[in-house]
């Protein structure tokens, strides 16, 4: 046992002495955590979704679109010309351009279809919220227009009923009118009656009706939707709840741990390549212990990496890592085991260290993609989801999303960590079976 530890220590020193690897293990993760926390972390709140509004119609209605866009707290809305807006979009400086085209004018009151255009930055992950907001605005405007239209009709019906009725009702007056329909009244009397009945001769202005309806959406619409993220009752209100782009920061952490471990695994092949292995084997150290020492070193390097990535993020940048450190340790620990196993397995599959260095990052990227580190697993097809069940990255993500995003306790990590252990056993088994150590 002592020998294994000594060997592991020796190997870690070897890794750390290599400037390139040291850079990769220490500096890079810190840099990345910094970028993540700025890009995706709590600092991201400041970065509002940049939206450009283009007013081609220049009507009251197009202004209404602009005013309501501005009211959305999470957007920063600027007005600009169409050409400029498209350029910003092309350069990726804005997420969306909302255009109020020429047809957004009083025609909408007549029920003639109009449209609001949304040009999307295809790379934007926040485009959905813009579309949702614009849909809401369009819905409100359409409802106002439709309301105005309906009321015109209803008033028309009420008028014809009123006109053909024998006895119009005159509130507050005891005058008995002749028993004839209102429509047969002399024009003069009709004009007089119009003073009391505002819509007897003229329709209420459709524009006025539009704004009368519009007023009723404020301060809050008749039916609104309140959305609440569900976090476990016992931690409600006290713990930091992960927001927004959590997916990315979890995903990239998972990917980078694998990346570093696969890279560090090159050490397993080193001695074989340089021929020092045969020398070592002449010493009274069994082969198994030599191998164990190397594997432990790879594992510990990965653990160091994980501690740096998670710790630095948590302490310096307030990246939320869930409420239960133990469950985090269990998931990350078993994931490290699985990945170390994978490293041993890959070492057995390749011939030289160079090949391993080359294949490592590629495998890491591929597994990260399938496992859902780059985008949420929920958006992919059922087949791809099934595929994720066969990757350690996938299970690490399940576990991490449970404990970080959902703030779950230790009971939720049992299944993922057991599966990860299963991966570890499988990979170690295959790796040690095929590893040609001499």
């Amino acid at each position: 046992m002592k020998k294994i530890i000594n060997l592991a220590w020796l190997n870690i020193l070897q890794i750390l002495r290599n400037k390139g690897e040291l850079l990769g293990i220490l500096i890079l993760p810190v840099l990345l955590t910094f970028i993540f926390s700025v890009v995706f972390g709590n600092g991201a709140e400041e970065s509002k979704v940049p939206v450009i509004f283009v007013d081609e119609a220049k009507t009251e209605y197009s202004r209404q679109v602009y005013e309501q866009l501005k009211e959305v707290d999470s957007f920063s809305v600027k007005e600009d010309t169409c050409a400029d807006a498209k350029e910003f979009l092309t350069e990726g400086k804005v997420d969306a351009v909302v255009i109020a085209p020429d047809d957004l004018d009083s025609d909408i009151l007549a029920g003639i279809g109009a449209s609001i255009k949304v040009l999307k930055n295809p790379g934007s992950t926040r485009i959905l919220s813009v579309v949702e907001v614009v849909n809401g605005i369009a819905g409100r405007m359409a409802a106002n227009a439709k309301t105005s239209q309906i009321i015109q009709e209803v008033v028309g019906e009420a008028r014809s009923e009123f006109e053909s009725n024998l006895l119009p009702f005159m509130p507050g007056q005891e005058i008995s009118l002749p028993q004839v329909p209102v429509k047969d009244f002399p024009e003069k009397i009709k004009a007089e009656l119009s003073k009391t009945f505002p819509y007897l001769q003229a329709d209420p202005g459709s524009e006025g009706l539009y704004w009368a309806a519009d007023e009723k959406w404020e301060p809050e619409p008749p039916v609104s939707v309140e959305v609440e993220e569900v976090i476990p009752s016992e931690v409600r209100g006290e713990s930091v709840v992960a927001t927004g782009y959590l997916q990315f920061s979890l995903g990239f952490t998972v990917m980078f741990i694998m990346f570093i471990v696969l890279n560090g695994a090159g050490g397993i092949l080193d001695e074989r390549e340089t021929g020092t292995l045969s020398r070592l084997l002449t010493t009274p150290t069994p082969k198994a212990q030599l191998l164990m020492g190397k594997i432990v070193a790879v594992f510990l390097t990965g653990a160091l990496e994980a501690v740096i990535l998670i710790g630095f993020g948590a302490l310096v940048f307030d990246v939320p890592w869930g409420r239960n450190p133990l469950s985090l340790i269990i998931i990350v620990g078993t994931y490290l085991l699985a990945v170390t196993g994978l490293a041993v397995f890959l070492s057995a599959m390749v011939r030289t260290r160079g090949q391993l260095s080359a294949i490592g990052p590629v495998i890491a990227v591929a597994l990260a993609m399938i496992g859902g580190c780059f985008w949420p697993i929920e958006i992919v097809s059922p087949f791809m989801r099934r595929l994720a069940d066969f990757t350690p990255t996938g299970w690490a993500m399940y576990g991490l999303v449970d404990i970080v995003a959902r703030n779950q306790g230790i009971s939720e990590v049992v299944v993922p960590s057991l599966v990860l252990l299963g991966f570890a056993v499988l990979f170690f088994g295959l790796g040690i079976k095929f590893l040609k150590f001499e």
Partner: protein
Amino acid sequence: MKKLVRIGLKDILITLRDVPALAILIGMPMIIILILGSALGSFGGDSEMARIDVAIVNLDEGDIGTEIVEGITEGEELEELFDTRVLDDAEDARKDVEKGNLAALLVIPEDFSDKINDSKPVKMNVFIDPGKEISASIFQNVVRSVATRISSASIAVQTARDVLIESKMVADEKDFTRHMDKVVKEITADDALSAIGVLGSDVEKEREITELDFYGTGMTIMFLLFGSMFGAFSLVKEKEEKTLSRLLITPTSKVSIIGGKMLGIFFVGAVQFLILFLFTVILGVYWGENLFGVFLLALGVLLAMTGLSVLFSSVAKNVRSVGAIAPLVVIVMALAGGSLFPISTMPEWLQPIRYLTINGWALDGLSDLMKGAGTNSILSNFGALIAMFFAFFLFGVWRLGCEE
């Protein structure tokens, strides 16, 4: 010059015989782009999303709640999208959301219909799983549009009441109810709210850049850069195995040796690019109409990559160091340059860091080309890539010179 070409050819042959290297340079990116394609579902027919698990708890004692439930559970389109369960206990259902079994839950409150009929504001509650933000937001959107519909109806009724009473042609509240049915019927008609549509960007006749385009091009550039690692391997190996000093004893100049190696690296990269380009085109990745521009940018990337390999081999003492440094540099460039996620997700002040990377300049230019830009507008990108090539190359040669 002849020697240079010979050394280049020899290196190309070595790489072509190295099956694992080929697998990584060409096979892996193909696999990854294939994965991307099926994950993001832009080819191979419609690979639809799995149905989203949601639930509704209707506590409303009136009719409107029931109508909402029916609307969501019985609509054909919605049925394809959601696997909706109707539950009784809001607390239990909430626990299911908490555990991640449900992406979202809609709770319609007890006094929902009453309040609407009294024209009082009322809220529907949606509980979402923070672990399934996208699925949850889809459901959220559906509920919001339901809310807008009911709001519209309520507002139409309120406004109609106000106006008719003002007109005095309707005697009183009771008299108004005769008209109300018509108002409600019309405002809740299927196409009532279609007066103003929202059009996506497709009407602009510009081809939208899909996620597949984005990742297809991004990954291709990233994997081209991995070529620099293999180049550095081959250079460093000669150093490590002391074959370099042997070569230098022969009447071969250092320039021929390094030049030959670079030629080999460049050529392998060019083959890799051509294969990946064709492959991605077959998969439906759109590179724009301006093929000359695409190849010009690719040339820039390949040159910069070649320069990078000289730089790697100058700073790394042995194959092991190259193996440690090169992939990290490539991945960091991919991250900062927009190969792995779109630049626009970064805060604005951080976005310029992409101009420190090969990926940044290349992808910038490629996205211009996809949007129909001419060759002129990418010349600056090409220039920047060439400048990178010279910077890497000269620094590398200088460092290599120091070692001798």
